[in-house]
């Protein structure tokens, strides 16, 4: 028997680590992976609350979050490939202009 708050605090810790990665990392691919980490943290709290309230809707929302994350990853990685082809770098400090 684990208190519900443990699950929610674990979710908060993972979300904060994702935010820290988004702030401190400089690589474009790593920034995308930090966003995925934040989405996973929110999914954990969805599942835990779905269990606590005995409602299945939370798990269905996790399913939708996963589908949208898959679409976001496909488009985002295509954008990363296109940016790398034009700039030859993945460092976000050097990608500050939309124009070439």
């Amino acid at each position, binding site marked *: 028997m684990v208190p519900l708050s443990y699950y929610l605090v674990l979710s908060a810790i993972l979300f904060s*680590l994702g935010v820290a990665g988004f702030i401190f990392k400089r690589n474009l*691919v790593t920034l995308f992976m930090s966003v995925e980490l934040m989405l996973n943290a929110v999914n954990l709290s969805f599942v835990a609350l779905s269990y606590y309230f005995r409602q299945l809707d939370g798990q269905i929302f996790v399913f939708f979050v996963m589908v949208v994350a898959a679409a976001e990853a496909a488009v985002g990685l295509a954008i990363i490939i296109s940016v790398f082809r034009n700039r030859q770098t993945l460092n976000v400090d050097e990608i500050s202009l939309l124009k070439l």
Partner: protein
Amino acid sequence: MYEILFFVFAAAAVGFAINLLVQRHPIYGAISLIGVMASLASLYLMLGAEFIAAVQVIVYAGAIMVLFVFVIMLLNAGVEERTNRSRMAKQLGAPLVVLLLGLLTSLVYRNFPPDAAVRFGDFPGQTADIGRRLYIYYMLPFEVVSILILVAIVGAVVLAKKET
């Protein structure tokens, strides 16, 4: 028993997430993110969400992370180099992250009493119930999301295509 399993998988998830921050090469970050997702799948299994655990392993750790690793290897991205980045991000970032964590934790402890516990093994929801709910109450979002993923695939092909 459940407490021990919870703490083992929670420690694994946090450790892999910290490893994602520490590693400088993106391929090691991708590997540790796969570790985070596997630990979270075990936690979902302990919460009685078998369907979500299976989808987590198949879609996230399988499909999305393969896409990430494939892109990292395709671009031959090296170690991220240190640059003279924005000083505001460096100095304001860490306090703000700690503040966010403290805020979320205090919110959790204020709204959920410590006796609000998760008892294992008595969850009524099965995969068939999720499917029934998904196709009766969530029919429209399901169809909209299928259109969304079709558009995303077409957009990704157009964006990544070589210009001739």
